[in-house]
């Protein structure tokens, strides 16, 4: 347990990546962890498209940025100073932050648990990446990256079934050399509520 807990406590979103591609053996382990995440009713419906083509990733990331309308950070409210997001820095034009590997998770449109199936798979992959020293960032709302003629053409090239949609992206890459690991942000208090015979405050 110790090592899993260390990983869970250590993992942070990484948005500043090294240009080096991650190794094939590391990628395989991460993908396997994603495939072994829980899945509603054992359906195993989601598909993970692993794109390591820098041009495609950059163009999709720019479409995603153009179609995103984040509430911009203020002095008091921001996402990360050490690993700025598009909400923190208006000069970032690529919502995939030049990550060398971008995984887009697709799932069926007409299935209640598609978002959750993809989210638990992403969490397994993020923890696995961290355990291997690889940085990761989850990008919710995957479809805006394809909401443009170029994006539609990519969906055709990738042969995505018509009844599937892009749920989210997962960015992977080595953290940028020289960057220090982001500091832990304080946990908000009062998020656990205990009910029942073992009840006691926390």
């Amino acid at each position: 347990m110790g090592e899993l807990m260390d990983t869970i406590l250590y993992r942070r979103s990484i948005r500043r990546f090294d240009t080096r591609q991650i190794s094939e053996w590391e990628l395989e382990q991460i993908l396997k962890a994603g495939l072994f995440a829980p899945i509603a009713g054992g359906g195993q419906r989601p598909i993970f498209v692993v794109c390591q083509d820098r041009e495609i990733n950059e163009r999709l990331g720019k479409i995603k940025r153009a179609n995103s309308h984040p509430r911009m950070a203020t002095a008091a409210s921001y996402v990360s100073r050490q690993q700025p997001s598009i909400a923190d820095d208006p000069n970032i034009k690529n919502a995939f932050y030049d990550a060398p590997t971008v995984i887009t998770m697709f799932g069926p449109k007409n299935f209640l648990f598609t978002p959750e199936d993809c989210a638990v798979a992403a969490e397994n992959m993020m923890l696995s990446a961290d355990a291997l020293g690889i940085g990761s960032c989850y990008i919710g709302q995957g479809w805006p990256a394809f909401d443009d003629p170029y994006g539609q053409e990519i969906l055709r090239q990738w042969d995505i079934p018509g009844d599937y949609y892009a749920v989210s992206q997962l960015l992977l890459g080595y953290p940028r050399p020289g960057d220090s690991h982001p500091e832990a942000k304080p946990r908000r208090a009062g998020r656990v509520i205990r009910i029942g015979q073992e009840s006691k405050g926390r």
Partner: protein
Amino acid sequence: MNEIIEKMLTRHAIRRFQQRQVDNEILDQILTAGLYAPSAGNNQYSRIVVCQDSEINEKLGRISRYMQFKGQDPKSIAHSISSEQPSIQDDFTIMNGFYNAPTVLTIFTRDGVYAHDDGAMIGENILLAAHFLGLGACYVGRTGEVFATEYGRTLWKAWGVPEDMVPVCNVLLGYIDGPFPHEKPRREGRIVRV
């Protein structure tokens, strides 16, 4: 292969629980794992309600089963999930969709487009932590439907969870009763490389 990843691959849904309650120290570690899941923009606007009141858990579990079938004949809509850890879709005589688990968590998150992403990741951290600590766990959806009922809404209020939140999932926790289930084959073709 990395040892943590290797162990992650051996996690499976558990639905057969012993009746003894989960040790509090173990429960605290599991909850900490949940609190450290990522959240959209680091909002951390989520609540984990830990219910160890067996009467409440059974009532909720019965409503959860109802939401699966909604009065239809289970035979006409169920599909097999697990013979080793039977679900309500495998064994129609199971009336409690929370499988008499001694601890039932309900995870609420901030309303909005990321509510289910945030809730599912908290759930997954909890499932993994439980597995690494030797406990069994099962993720159950349809929590939104369960907490839209009159009974669910009453509990929601009594628990002091803010009204504007989204009930995303339940996680059942307990010690495993009987043998650990085997791995199921993975479907081919789910990874596409471009």
